[in-house]
């Protein structure tokens, strides 16, 4: 679910930046916006401000509190869990799952990002030259991105099924032994990466495509006149001019990919034996996946994940700033 958010947040941020740039008048603001206007404005803003406090800040606070106390099911319901300091964090960092989960998060994120970006860019370049049907086909490419994740995840589960999956049937046709995509520790991480790349390609395609549209055509015409080859035009015009859009696409992809939970949980539940466990699925499993929930450690893992996401967000905002100053 969180996936969808970051999917669009990028574009919104950029749009907002552009809108802000347009909306900022060069002249000093008119006088009428003083005194009473501030209160009127806050009257319109108050519901969202209150909402942010009640439904973002407070759950986050509760999450931190969960991670600092020694909860049992009983004390979770009745209250009175003893303060445990950083015990939960120590427990989590020492757990045998921690290093693999961190490593899988890194592999999952980097591999997904690179593949989505490369394929998305190649498709964007392909669609950049208009041809009959190109608009319709581009719209169809959005389907994987708009499907509910549970739909995509269960479809891929069946495609990759060891005995009855189409992928293994296709492999058998060319003489390859069946692969236990979802049930062998060797392949499970790759399987969820494949599905995640499939879901992420449309976003990269659409955003990079609109980035390409913004590159002035005369540049290409001039380069063509000078005898630049297709590769040279890509290397010296497309690539540098697309850089800001590429960077934002990658950074938002990063924030989104760190959050991916549904897909992995539905396809493999992080297994077998933690082989596709990431920080997000581990946190869920600790809190909700077992009969005996461990809310404290689960919240601790979640907070570590937030640190990663906020770090990525800081990079993103820093980048935005730099772009704006240019």
């Amino acid at each position: 679910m969180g996936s969808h958010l970051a999917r669009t947040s990028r574009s919104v941020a950029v749009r907002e930046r552009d809108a802000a740039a347009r909306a900022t008048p060069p002249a000093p603001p008119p006088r009428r916006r003083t005194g009473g206007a501030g209160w009127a404005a806050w009257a319109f803003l108050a519901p969202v401000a209150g909402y942010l406090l009640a439904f973002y800040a407070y759950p986050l606070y509760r999450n931190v509190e969960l991670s600092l106390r020694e909860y049992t099911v009983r004390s979770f319901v009745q209250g009175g869990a003893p303060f445990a300091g950083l015990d939960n964090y120590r427990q989590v960092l020492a757990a045998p799952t921690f290093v693999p989960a961190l490593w899988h998060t890194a592999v999952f994120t980097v591999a997904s990002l690179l593949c989505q970006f490369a394929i998305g860019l190649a498709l964007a370049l392909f669609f950049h030259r208009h041809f009959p049907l190109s608009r319709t086909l581009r719209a169809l490419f959005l389907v994987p991105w708009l499907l509910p994740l549970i739909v995509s995840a269960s479809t891929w589960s069946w495609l990759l099924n060891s005995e009855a999956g189409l992928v293994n049937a296709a492999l058998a046709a060319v003489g390859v032994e069946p692969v236990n995509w979802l049930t062998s520790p060797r392949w499970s991480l790759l399987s969820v990466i494949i599905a995640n790349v499939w879901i992420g390609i449309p976003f990269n395609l659409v955003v990079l495509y609109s980035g390409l549209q913004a590159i002035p055509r005369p540049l290409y015409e001039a380069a063509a006149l000078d005898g630049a080859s297709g590769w040279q035009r890509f290397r010296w015009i497309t690539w540098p001019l697309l850089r800001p859009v590429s960077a934002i696409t990658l950074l938002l992809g990063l924030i989104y990919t760190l959050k991916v939970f549904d897909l992995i949980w539905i396809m493999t539940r992080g297994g077998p034996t933690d082989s596709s466990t990431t920080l997000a699925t581990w946190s869920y499993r600790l809190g909700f996946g077992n009969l005996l929930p461990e809310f404290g450690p689960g919240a601790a893992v979640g907070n570590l994940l937030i640190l990663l996401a906020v770090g990525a967000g800081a990079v993103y905002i820093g980048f935005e700033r730099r772009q704006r100053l240019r």
Partner: protein
Amino acid sequence: MKRTRRGWWRSGLGVLLTGLMLFPVYWMINVSFTRDQDMRRNPPHLFPVDGTLDGYRAVLSQQLPYVGTSLLVGLGTVLLTLALAAPAGYALAKLRPPGGGAVRFLLLIAQMIPGIIMAMGFYAIYLDLGVLNTVPGLILADSTIAVPFAVLIFTAFMSGIPDDLIQAAHVDGANRLRTFWSVVLPVSRNAIVTVSLFAFLWAWSDFIFASTLDGGGTHRPITLGIYQYIGNNNQQWNAIMATAVVAAIPTTVLLVLAQRYVAVGVTAGAVKD
């Protein structure tokens, strides 16, 4: 002439690539019509020969309540999101209150918080309040997916409304609330449609809040319907895939009827066109 021929060559390749990309979607539909006894056939039928509607019969008899809940949750989320986000967008775009920049910044940050963390926090709070496994609780949680996005969309869109239009309303004696309701909202129709579509789609697709906050309720959404199918009867893949097809209907409707608005939501002025 030469150009056209080349264009068609690209169309051919484009169709091929799109077909490849959408193949899993086709496979989902194909499997939803496949008979149980053909399910593990090797090699599988590439077309639903001897197709069956058993999967869809199972959906009709077992999944309809889930669909109803999802519709309710989706519509509730849309209304709540619009009610919160449209006034805020107006304030940020046109009234520019002190501290507005900070709110905007918080909205950007809010979108980066992983859902699992929100879910755990909500779980603890809902347990205290006794609203676990309720539809309003799920609507409230689902709205957190859409509200920051919606405020940013409204702000961006309303920034483009000419100040003269709002001034004229003031001159005519309309107060701010009246101006917002009768002038700003009607011209923001596109933003309203975009926000509604995405808020609905996200609430409809939500799995993490549903599974943590509504896992044991009597009114559960379609995503949990599919999830429980997968967990319970591993064999009836035609029923699972038929439910998936039903769950994909809003996506299809969105793409067919409102493609223009989807594009607004995705690229929302990503780069200046």
